[in-house]
């Protein structure tokens, strides 16, 4: 058997397009956790995230031959997964508001945890574009250029959205926690 683990993403995708039945499975194995993280952070709901990741991977499976090769496969996957998340979210609520989903009970948790929960809540209140930019850049750690490609906007737009999103978040948290919102422990 070909050692799929040593095959590049690009080669795997090409192999999938050529009919290799195992190639896409390796891509899934390789990137499922990262895609799960971005989906969960985008939707803030495990059920919606699971559906979105499934939608996204199925879509990627079918549209593999649309991959042009001028981007990284992970960028392409991120884009598909994020779009699947947005589709799912819009199906349940045609606004940028996120579903109410408590990551944890607010009782009996440390102050820093409360702040983290409030960050999640605040993220749900800022405009979608800003939230997505922050999710990709600040939470997922994507380079600005890659985030721009995922969201189909200019790099400057990503920077702008991040900066404005951070400011909006800070204001929302300051309203709740005063200046001790940074969550440092």
């Amino acid at each position: 058997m070909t050692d799929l683990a040593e095959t590049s993403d690009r080669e795997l995708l090409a192999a999938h397009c050529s009919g290799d039945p195992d190639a896409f499975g390796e891509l899934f194995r390789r990137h499922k956790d990262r895609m799960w993280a971005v989906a969960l952070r985008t939707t803030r709901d495990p059920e919606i995230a699971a559906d979105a990741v499934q939608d996204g991977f199925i879509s990627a499976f079918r549209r593999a031959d649309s991959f042009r090769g001028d981007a990284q496969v992970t960028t392409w996957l991120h884009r598909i997964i994020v779009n699947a998340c947005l589709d799912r979210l819009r199906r349940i609520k045609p606004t940028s508001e996120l579903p109410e989903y408590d990551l944890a009970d607010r009782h009996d948790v440390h102050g820093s945890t409360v702040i983290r929960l409030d960050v999640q809540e605040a993220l749900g209140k800022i405009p979608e574009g800003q939230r997505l930019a922050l999710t990709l850049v600040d939470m997922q750690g994507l380079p600005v250029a890659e985030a721009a490609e995922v969201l189909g906007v200019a790099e400057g737009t990503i920077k702008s959205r991040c900066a404005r999103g951070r400011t909006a978040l800070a204001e929302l948290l300051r309203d709740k926690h005063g200046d001790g919102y940074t969550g440092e422990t």
Partner: protein
Amino acid sequence: MTTPPDDFENDPTGMRDLLRSLPDPGPMPQDVADRIAAALAAEHAGRAEDDRSNVTPMTRTGRSSKPAGRRWMQAVGGVAAAAAVAAVAVVGINSLQQDNAPTSAVPSGGTHRSVSTDELADRVQVESTGTSYTGASFNTQAASMATGSKTSRIPAQELLTQFGALTKPRAIIGCVRTVGGSLLDDPSSIKVDLATYDGKPALIVVVTDDGKRTAFAVSSSCSKGDKPYAAPRSV
């Protein structure tokens, strides 16, 4: 409107560091991974069937749309369907989850295919009787299923969730082929009960050929690498 790069890089709000400090969501839960792997395997199955027959693509489960035509390996490597229930052990979806050596309970008999997939699909009858098949009573239960006619008792949506494409005759043909290609030489009927076997979701299949009935049970993923729950036997 744009924001000066300095605001982005320096982040006077401290939010970038706060967001980066948030805990990672962790790995994808196993049940979600299994479910998606099964859905992808069902895609393989559907495409393999489409490619083999070169006819209109079969209808797939709820989230699906028409597949693009593409060459796939002739062997159905990883015929599987969505087994979404967390309790269901979707084991060894060959091409997606692990590298199980293929086990075929019946010799494939080469590539002899005297009957087209379309013709075979016409001979498939799918039902969901709600029967709980067991290892101890399988022969009797399978024989009863083959001769009986019950109304499906499980909602279609639930079946789709558990069995995905394997509710469709053409995918079922692919599944039977992974168990034993010779079963498809020229059967008069292929009767399938979407049920459980020893408590696990399973396809119960009875192939009738020239009056002789062969029954077997496979998991709801019907993966090439999976050992059938009940190997083919005369009933």
